């Protein structure tokens, strides 16, 4: 744009040719420098509050470092060696992944079903959409409190109901798997509706005539769902999975508040990795090891991210059966967006917003 803008101005002054006036030079400077000035705050702040701390975490992890006493001896990778042999660390990782799986898989299935139900010619659309989004406005802390109460072992609502059906009370806090289910339920309750809406948006960008012709060809509603709807929303599905992964592996609030006294249960049966990090840093006051845990978790999340990226790339490349929606999206996307697509899963998925304008006329009702 700089160039196009420049031209007419230059043309006008061409007659009087000689040196550019101060004003013109100022103008050129304005044009060249402004873009950098506009993006500078982001990059500077991000470097300060995002990148630097992450890098410094690595630095700290190489030292004996105490919360109060501060920097101690340089120990190299000893912290890493110790943390990798620490069974509490592996325990926390197991719990994190277990809770993540128990929360993500049912949540995605449920969200897809809800989205499919909402993707019909409903009365009072907005009401139903709002009703499934309601849990999203309850903060995780409040969610944790409500569900901690409902999952109480002695007087909890759920055990009360179970016992009135003659079922033995479940030890929601003391047993590993039940505690994971309880925590996953908190996550699921808050996020299912939210993800359902994202999937609904993807479903609505599938042109209806595809369904029409499939129906004429004799495809039943189940067949249409599995052969048209699901393939079409796959890119969005990847996006939902990626965000669920990045968030899910950093889960803290729910397990922290599920047992307000011990950090993650008396036998660490639901201590997640961030919770262990927190315990290491602020209760055991070992900043060196806590930083090591942070850095290892960072690597693990990155690993998950790369795996996700590879999967989403495969979906993107062998995508003959991808829905028309994503194909259309691809056509619309500019070169920069295509580049963004390559840059990573997040981008691949977030290009979804670019497709939104097509779907708004319909979804707006």
């Amino acid at each position, binding site marked *: 744009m700089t*160039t196009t803008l420049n031209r007419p101005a230059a043309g006008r002054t061409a007659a009087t040719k000689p040196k550019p006036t101060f004003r013109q030079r100022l103008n050129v400077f304005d044009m060249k420098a402004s873009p950098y000035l506009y993006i500078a705050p982001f990059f500077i702040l991000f470097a300060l509050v995002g990148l630097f701390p992450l890098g410094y975490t690595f630095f700290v992890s190489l030292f004996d470092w105490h919360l109060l006493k501060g920097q101690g001896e340089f120990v190299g990778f000893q912290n890493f060696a110790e943390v990798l042999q620490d069974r509490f660390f592996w325990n926390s990782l197991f719990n994190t992944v277990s809770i993540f799986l128990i929360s993500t898989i049912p949540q995605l299935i449920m969200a897809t079903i809800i989205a499919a139900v909402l993707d*019909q*010619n409903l009365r009072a659309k907005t009401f139903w959409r709002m009703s499934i989004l309601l849990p999203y*406005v309850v903060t995780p802390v409040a969610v944790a409190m*409500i569900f901690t109460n409902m999952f109480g072992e002695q007087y909890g609502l759920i055990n009360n109901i179970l016992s*009135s059906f003659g079922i033995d009370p479940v030890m929601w806090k003391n047993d590993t798997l039940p505690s994971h289910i309880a925590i996953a339920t908190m996550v699921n309750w808050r996020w299912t509706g939210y993800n359902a809406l994202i999937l609904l948006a993807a479903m609505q960008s599938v042109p209806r005539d595809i369904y029409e012709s499939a129906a004429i060809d004799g495809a039943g509603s189940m067949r249409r769902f599995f052969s048209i709807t699901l393939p079409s929303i796959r890119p969005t599905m990847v996006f939902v999975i990626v965000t669920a992964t990045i968030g899910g592996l950093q889960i803290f609030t729910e397990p922290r508040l599920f047992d*307000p006294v011990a950090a993650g249960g008396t036998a660490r049966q639901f201590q997640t990795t961030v919770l262990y990090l927190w315990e290491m840093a602020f209760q055991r006051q070992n900043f060196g090891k806590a930083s090591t845990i942070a850095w290892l978790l960072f690597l693990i999340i990155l690993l998950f991210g790369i795996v996700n990226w590879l999967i989403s790339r495969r979906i993107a490349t062998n995508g003959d059966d991808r829905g028309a929606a994503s194909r259309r999206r691809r056509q619309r996307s500019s070169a920069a967006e295509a580049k963004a697509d390559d840059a990573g899963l997040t981008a691949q998925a977030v290009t979804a917003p670019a497709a939104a304008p097509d779907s708004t006329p319909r979804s707006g009702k």
Partner: protein
Amino acid sequence: MTLTQNRPAAPAPQRTSRSLTTRKALFGNGRRPGFLTYGLLIAFFLASAYPLWWSVIIGSRSNEALGETWPPLLPGGNFWTNVGEVFDTVPFWLALGNSVLISGIITISVVGFSTLAGYAFAKLRFRGRNWLMVAVIATMAIPTQLGIIPLFMLMRTLGWTGEIGAVVIPTLVTAFGVFFMRQYLVDVIPDELIESARMDGASMISTFWHVALPAARPAMAILGLFTFMTAWTDFLWPLLVLDAGNPTLQTALSQLQSARYVDYSIVLAGAVMATLPLLALFVLAGRQLISGIMQGAVKG
């Protein structure tokens, strides 16, 4: 799905509003879904609402309600007594004020910087634009939350622990915000508009101010809404840098539960009180929230 299937069976028996007729013309089916669909929707609604309703029930009774074999279905009359207990236990109003202040500052900052940078990426040409944009996208995948230890050390060195500033600083800007604004602005502002503003002699910043900013408003509102929500619900960081005497709503709420003997009627009364502000926001801006999510807004 169900609708297409039923299409030939019966002409839509209900009101012929205009939207319905256009729909019919467009998609060839005006058939409304059946009871099964609405049954499911009601089930979803109950699943969404019941835990909240349960917190109202318990929050308005006393702890004994929990022992009853058949759970009560209606609220009791103890709500304000319990709320009084909440006020006695934690500095509720201070926490509410802190949360409003923190979330407000973060929202203004994120929306402002993101709009500025998003506009530059969407509409201005400059050297390195593409790879800088890729850098922004790449940073979206970095879990910055894991940098809490150096950030905590930094805040302690600066002597800011316990103060609002310590909570605000790490979230003044997000890569997602920049990306979101760029995606929106790239389509919504015609290049000609910017060019003509420039030809009329407007400086870059005044072009931004008079052309880009008005066009960006809808996206700014959505980004603001989600940034506010994210800041409001944040728990780990404020827990680390603030102390019990100067909490946010979330950390204050968690204090209710950390007592040795947990009185759930008080805890849940607190949860209800803390949910009310966002519930109000939901009633006012629920539609925007929905359209924001459906346009691909991302959870924080």
